[in-house]
């Protein structure tokens, strides 16, 4: 990198973390690990928000920080509902293998 500004470094780290999470969500068979991949992607987005807040022109307006805090709260709700669904699917199908779940009908 010819010009390694701090903001570009943060954005690259976030892009790499997002891609790792995407790869995990797309390649793993276990439903819980797919959720883990989604959590990593959400966290990468939060890192972007915080980095833009820190290096943007108006950090005192707190916009990016607020966005990140609300995003964390929404991600917590998403994790609770998602893991509840995984537990229910496991009760129903006796498995969390996503490749085995190929029927819409129970």
């Amino acid at each position, binding site marked *: *990198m010819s*010009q*390694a*500004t*701090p903001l*570009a*470094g*943060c954005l*690259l*780290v976030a*892009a*790499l973390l*997002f*891609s*790792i999470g*995407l*790869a*995990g969500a*797309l*390649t*793993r*068979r276990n439903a*819980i*690990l797919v959720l*883990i*991949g989604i*959590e*990593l992607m959400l966290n990468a987005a*939060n*890192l972007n928000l*915080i*980095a833009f807040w*820190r*290096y*943007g022109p108006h*950090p005192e307006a*707190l916009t990016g*920080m*607020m966005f*990140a*805090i609300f995003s*964390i*709260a*929404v*991600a*917590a*709700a*998403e*994790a*609770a*509902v998602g*893991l*509840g669904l*995984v*537990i*229910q699917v*496991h*009760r129903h199908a006796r498995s*969390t*293998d996503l490749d085995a779940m190929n029927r819409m009908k129970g």
Partner: protein
Amino acid sequence: MSLVFYLFAALTLAGGLAAVLLKNTIHCALALTVAFAGLALLFLDLDAQFAGFAQILVYIGAVAILVVFAILLTRSSETPKDGVYSKNWLAGLAIAAGVFAVLAWAVLQSAGGLPQGAAATPAVTVLQIGNALLGRYVLPLEIVALLLTAAMIGAVIVAMHEKERAQR
């Protein structure tokens, strides 16, 4: 960029990679916790103290514990015999690599237009954050409170469904 930033970034990325690659699901959850901790450290390094501690409380304190509980309840900690990766893992890997290539290209192309150098450290106190949350952002705050309540009730209802059906 300082050495500290590189250290925290390496910790986060190593945790994320381990969470995605390891075979044992419990180990994946622990590696996920390491990635969350690395991100919290990155937030603290970026002078976002409140977001960093919220990250530690919510992700390490709640989400990681939830993931471990879900793994134990679904007994998916033993490694399946036919591999941990999906049948079409190659396509998934290619898509992820393509997404990273596009994102990195976009960041590097626009690096000249991004704000240069380190801005002055923003002096943000918790008082200011509280004032903003209960002033300008009070409506989103109430909506998030409603969303969290609905999600909690919804998760309980989803997870309780089986017993009800068995009684019928």
